[in-house]
């Protein structure tokens, strides 16, 4: 799920409105973790997909 200008605008609108309320901001973060990591088919891990020397033989 790549970012797009439309998604970014919606995110920033949220950040500037409901996102200012700590509860909403925490809730949003929990939703992101659920959608992108815990329930995702292809899980997102920020510190992954770097170069591995074994890649040269693939």
């Amino acid at each position: 799920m790549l970012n797009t200008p439309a998604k970014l605008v919606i995110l920033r609108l949220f950040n500037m409105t409901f996102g200012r309320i700590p509860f909403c901001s925490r809730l949003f973060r929990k939703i992101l973790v659920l959608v992108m990591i815990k329930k995702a088919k292809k899980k997102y891990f920020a510190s992954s997909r770097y170069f591995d020397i074994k890649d040269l033989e693939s």
Partner: protein
Amino acid sequence: MAKDNTEKDTGIYREIALGQIPRILGLGDRKKYSVTSGCFDRYYWHYKITDFPNARFQEAALLLALIYKKEFMGNIFYNKPAVLDWALQAVSFWLKIQRGNGSFDEVYPRENSFIATAFSAAAATEAVLLLDKDILPSRKLIKTGDWLAKNNNEDVGNQMAASALALYNIFLITSLEKYKIASEEKIKKILASQSGEGFFPEYGSYDVGYMSICVSYLAQYARKNQSPELDNALVRAASFIESKVRPDGSYDWAEMSRQTQYIYPFGLGLIKSGVLDSHVRGLSDGAVLNPAWMDDRFCLPLTIDYLRTAMEC
């Protein structure tokens, strides 16, 4: 004055560049069937922090082409099919993100950036020429060539130099004479802008760092399309840079028009400038900035320049 330095040991450029290659490979989506396969903007394809890919990261195509094609000490990437695949994927993704008018974006969507178009096109076309692969559809390349021919940023010499090289490469690939003419027009504009002291202006005044980029691209251009005027301008430019760089390779960047802290050595090496002696000394002493000190965006093109200095100077 420029002097002959053919005996110079440029090994330090090779060592520094080789140290950055695994880092740069980590910026790319190297999965063959991913929708962003070949994208080297990790902030876009992996972190998803940005909402569009910065075309300048696709300059990685040239780095990959160089390490695939050139055998040199310490190059574990030489002739590896995986590296060739990644290089071709990087070029393909570059084509994929091309705007309808042939331009590319760097800072925001629909920017139609002159700098991103000039530099990414120069790198992608250099990669294709080096790999000798017919993978650039002419209609797409022609769009970029036409856009570059029509647009200029005469305030900034280094961008004009990159656009001239890109146009000349497009001429070499398409055999369309109009791009050779367009590249020569760009060169004429650059030469006309050179000051009496020898510098190519960067927003009205001199900046050694950006001028070294300008010299790098102009010297590459001069190898392909020689002219005595350009050779003379390069010698004058090198002399100007030499007058500003100290024996330890540093210079007073705070007084420069763009406060740039780095030096691109490739062009200076090609024209045998004595600046390389000072720069190598500064790098050996850890006294001057090198690609490892920089962020991803600026590390990439400087690493390419270091690698080419080591291989070709």
